[in-house]
């Protein structure tokens, strides 16, 4: 638990962050990513897609009583960050995100041209 100072810093690359555990599942329609980010409210979650790079970033915002003194800390950094490289067949303009109970669900569909197609084989 860190001091809840009034000074708000903008996250930079240099700031330490936790790596959230993720599950990545791919099926024929696209990729679904689940990330565990407990303590991050909706307004403190930042998703950036730039070229083929997807960045997931979130600030932990916990309600703390005044004058709290920590005696045991396992989550010592109030921030999560993880960067992924997207492949070409994914349509990064169609990313949809849901955040529920600290779990982020990202759906990245495959681009139209990359969708599987059945090729008919004609028997002559």
């Amino acid at each position, binding site marked *: 638990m860190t001091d809840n100072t009034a000074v708000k810093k903008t996250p930079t690359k240099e700031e330490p962050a936790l790596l959230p555990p993720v599950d990545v*599942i791919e099926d024929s329609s696209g990729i679904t990513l689940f990330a565990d*980010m407990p*303590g991050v409210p909706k307004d403190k979650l930042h998703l950036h897609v730039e070229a083929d790079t997807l960045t997931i970033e979130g600030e932990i915002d*916990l309600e703390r009583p005044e004058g709290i003194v920590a005696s045991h800390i396992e*989550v010592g950094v109030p921030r999560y960050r993880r960067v992924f490289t997207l492949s070409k067949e994914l349509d990064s303009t169609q990313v949809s995100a849901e955040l529920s*109970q600290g779990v982020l669900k990202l759906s990245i569909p495959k681009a139209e041209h990359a969708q599987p197609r059945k090729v008919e084989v004609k028997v002559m």
Partner: protein
Amino acid sequence: MMYRSLFPRDWLSELDRLQHEVQNAFHLSPSIRGIARGGFPAMNVGGTPQSVEIYAFAPGIDPATLDVQIDKGVLTIAGERQRQAATAEATKHIDERFEGRFRRVVSLPDDIDANAVEARYSDGVLRISIARKQSAQPRRITIQ
């Protein structure tokens, strides 16, 4: 699991805590997994003169299935995290998130009031506030 008091009272555990803090200061990312060494859920514990505060980082759990108990000064948080089964044609590329049953136990300080407990679950964090006994709180004594 190694036993370690979460409420240091003696100088040895204070030393232990100091060592951890120094380590964390040097290794700015204390855990590469986001989940610290203690297991799932990761926990932060703190206190104020009026209460003991426990934060359990347990995302994606139905709060109704969480089992929180206080018995003889020991707090137990237990539950199960289930993930939706992937369909047959889906491929799992990365599989890091915790799945299954979990249980964590915290020994509480002696001055807590086991009847004044409040537990809330929001944004995937379970926060348990346990009030300290009235008799244990600092009081000003008037001189007759």
